């Protein structure tokens, strides 16, 4: 029986439907990643300010977002916003809001870390060469910051893609949901389809995330020191 179960993938457009479901996840993650990078860079810069008020606010934001499971945040926005503000947010919108809030916090912390990790004498030796402030940033600080930041950001992106799988819990029709539908539809014809569908989804996620992990690892090694 088991060797036959795999045929469920090739029946009709089942496989394409799974890919379509995966695409929903990827789209939502990509939007969230993009927004997180933009807001995260801003947040990171704000976090390096010595202002006690911004320090306190960003700190609380960061700690709260990071300590809560992402699924709790999803619930807060998806169920909470609807109830509290009477607005009916779709699962997709809630997902983008939550993953952007979370991604921004993580990204902000990475940016802050990368910025403060540049030793002071790097600024000084730039100045010693007679460089302008803008030149010091352009040629010395930003390139070094990016080298630290890019591998970590890629890792964050894979984490965000993996975490986006949670949207099935707030009713978004994504790859797991499509998988369930296919399993339901073939309940009698292919009784063990569940195994094949979930194995496929497992490897689909792997194929999406793994290249990013490899890339991040390579860049990290290459840019060490």
């Amino acid at each position, binding site marked *: 029986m*088991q060797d036959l*179960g795999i045929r469920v993938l090739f029946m009709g457009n089942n496989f394409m439907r799974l890919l379509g479901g995966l695409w929903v996840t990827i789209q939502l993650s990509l939007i969230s990643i993009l927004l997180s990078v933009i807001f995260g860079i801003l947040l990171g810069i704000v976090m390096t300010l010595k202002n006690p008020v911004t320090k306190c606010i960003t700190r609380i934001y960061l700690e709260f977002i990071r*300590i*809560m*499971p*992402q*699924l*709790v945040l999803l*619930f*807060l926005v998806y*169920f*909470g916003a*609807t*109830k*509290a503000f009477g607005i009916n947010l779709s699962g997709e919108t809630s997902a983008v809001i939550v993953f952007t809030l979370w991604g921004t916090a993580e990204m902000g912390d990475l940016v802050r870390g990368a910025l403060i990790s540049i030793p002071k004498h790097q600024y000084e030796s730039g100045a010693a060469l007679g460089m302008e402030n803008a030149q010091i940033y352009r040629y010395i600080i930003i390139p070094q910051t990016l080298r630290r930041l890019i591998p970590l950001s890629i890792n964050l992106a*894979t984490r965000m893609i*993996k*975490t986006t*799988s*949670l949207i*099935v*819990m707030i009713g978004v029709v994504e790859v*797991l949901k499509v*998988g369930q539908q296919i*399993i339901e539809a073939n309940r009698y014809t292919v*009784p*063990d*389809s*569940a*195994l*094949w*569908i*979930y*194995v496929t*989804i*497992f490897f689909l*996620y*792997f194929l999406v*995330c*793994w290249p990013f*992990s490899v890339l991040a690892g390579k860049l990290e090694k290459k840019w060490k020191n």
Partner: protein
Amino acid sequence: MENKREADSHFLCLKNKKGSNGVDIDFITQYAPMYVEAAKLTLRLGAIGILLSLIVGLLGALVQYYKIPVLRRIIAVYIELSRNTPLLVQLFLLYFGLPKMGIVWTSETCAIVGLTFLGGSYMAEAFRSGLESVDKIQFESGLSIGLNHSQVMRYIIFPQALSTSVPALCANVIFLIKETSVFSVVALADLMYVAKDLIGLYYKTEEALLMLVVAYLIILLPISIIASLLERRLRYAGFGN
């Protein structure tokens, strides 16, 4: 439908009793025990999963440290698979997929196996980077005063590796406890399940969510504080060159 209406009337009647802050205290006291039970479940399964993750991780890291042939490849593949797939999908596979192969596990077993499968690779990476951080010459230095291999590991390499690993291990513990929030997909009545249930049944969204957040804060805040204290102590305490 009857249920829904009953819930609605229940909701309306409780609404009248609402305090000035708009939160229904009676509801909270009534249903708090459910959260306590759910939190206990989360903590119990989380603790078992984390403990097993530590064991798997330590073994995995040792296999890589000693470069044991074949096993080392298997561990490398496992780490990649585990780190590049979501726990949610791993749990679906364990709970709904494996029974079709004749492997039927209870919800709790699935949750523990899933958490261990995920956590093992994270712990392995933490231990591995700790072991790698100890300079090779420390090993030779130990040998040169006559310690044998296992004594060098026990007195010199492990203590240093472990203290370097602690921040990453703590981060993993917090990460894994947060990950337990998906346990409801394998039909476990965890915190998320209880919250969703209360929202669905009584439409008590604010109260249900508030208790949810508080429950996770009660679980995670102490761990996070202990972790940062531990990290600070290790950083400023006696050693580290």
